[in-house]
């Protein structure tokens, strides 16, 4: 693991972006985009999670291996979601 000390600026920028994204996601929720509402909300959530993982959790400064470990959980969750929902979507 690297011991890079991340600069204060980076942390502050990350934090501010997170807060802005939070506001955006709430605002967007009140606008009717049809099916896109869910997509937008999830896209923003993913973006927020990525910011936290990259900067607060120092993945950006870590090794490839840590990337793999961090990604694995989400990847397997995606497998489960996709296959289960494929079943429901193709019934009848």
């Amino acid at each position, binding site marked *: 693991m690297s011991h890079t000390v991340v600069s204060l600026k980076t942390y502050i920028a990350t934090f501010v972006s997170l807060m802005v994204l939070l506001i955006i996601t709430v605002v967007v929720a009140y606008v009717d985009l049809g099916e896109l509402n869910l997509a937008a909300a999830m896209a923003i959530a993913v973006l927020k999670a990525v910011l936290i993982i990259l900067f607060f959790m120092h993945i950006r400064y870590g090794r490839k*291996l840590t990337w793999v470990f961090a990604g694995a959980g989400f990847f*397997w969750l995606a*497998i*489960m979601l996709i*296959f*289960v929902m*494929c079943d*429901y979507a*193709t019934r*009848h």
Partner: protein
Amino acid sequence: MSHEPENYLTEHSVRSWLLTTDHKRIGILYLLSIVVYFAIAAAAAAMMRLQLLQPNNDLVLPETYNKLFTLHGVLMVWFFLIPSIPAVLGNFVIPMMIGARDVAFPKLNLLSWYLFNIGGSCALYAVICGGVDTGWTFYTPYSTTYANGHVVTMIMGVFIAGFASILTGLNFIITIHKMRAPGMTWFRLPLFIWSLYSTSIILVLATPVLAITLLAIAVERLWGVGIFDPNLGGDPVLFQHMFWFYSHPAVYIMILPGMGVVSELITCFSRKRIFGYHFVAFSSLAIAIVGFLVWGHHMFVSSQSVYAGMVFSILSFIVAVPSAIKVFNWTATLYKGSISYDTPMLYAFGFIGLFTIGGLTGLFLAAIAVDVHLHDTYFVVAHFHYIMVGGMVLSFMGGLHYWWPKISGRLYPEMMGRVAAAVTFIGFNLTFFPQFLLGYLGQPRRYHAYPPEFQVFHVLSTAGASILGVGYLMPLIYFLWSLKWGKRASDNPWQATGLEWQTTSPPLRENFEEIPIVTKEPYDYRPEDDPEHEPQAQPQHA
């Protein structure tokens, strides 16, 4: 024992065992625990087989029969087979094989053993209080609304034991990544390590889903709200998805370690380098990963969508390819070897034969149209016993015999070992082969009574089980016997190459006097001039 050099067994106090963080001692603790659970589950099997001697036997009540197979399934799967090779043999040999002093998190390792037994006690408590009759699969809405007995207690037992699994898996992954001795590159790892690494991936990524699913069942049963009961607006098939998302990968938890052991045994006893090292290594990973994509083959007739069924069917065929690769490579390894028939090797041969049959019948079940007929019949029962008993249990026995000199410092009686292996093999086939025919005839599973025309096969099966039981009892007896009267083992009785054989038998407390430096690939055996072999490492100051 004062005349012996100090080793991991030297200290004798109970405290020194219960508070140990030594991976070898934890392996032994696990061994003791799983033997107890196995004995209980096997006794349940014996009762079931006796009940099935006659079409309408009244040896046990229907409720009791249902509780017996639930007990049998739950204990065998979660409290015997899943921890068998990983937590016993894996714990014992992984650190030694890769040249480490211990696993990465010894305290978590001990915690895992405690959690395991707390879980086991919960499960047994549920049984003592009156039992559970859901089957090991806990299908809803039966388990949530209609079942009798202490379902929640049983579920909590499995839930807790799940965390023991997770801790074991986590420990192995980190140990294998971070604790390898200098020179021990990935492609110098023994194949046993590769297989346990793959197993650990499954343990870590699948078990949490089981945990949350069981938790949801418990909530639903206790408070009558939930997502799995159609009466409450939910869907029972969703439960099956989530259960099998864990439980199919879990069946690979119950075979990959066995494949790892067999890879060790085949090379050692044919004194040959493994054929196709990379293929065998990566096929383990492939099984672990693709194995996550096939769970729906347990649900072909559950009313899941036709298309989902087809996708799961084709993936189930594909997942057989890496298994095929392994079988072929083992066979090729024997070519031009120098093969001896010591007990572990007999078990390895047994494994290859029975696993192949079990796996091929798995393909019958994966063929979606045929599964419509065979689903939930004794064909399935025979399929999984061929793999789990014929495959995994035999390889566990093989591994235990192989490493016994290292574990105990004593030799087991070789002749008895060979006889027991033969008895097990014969008893096994007599027990479970007739079940394929039964299943094809249409005998459903989980039936305490059946039409009279099926009786012949049931009688054969019960006869086989009593022989099989003897096959299990013999090693139990002679292993215990050898502890006191067995010949002392040398450090490397099999002339094997692995690092675990380069320390004393039994090993030192921290395994090695000095961490070895690995200089070559594993399995550098020389069949031309056996028993010559090149150990994998040189001592640091040689």
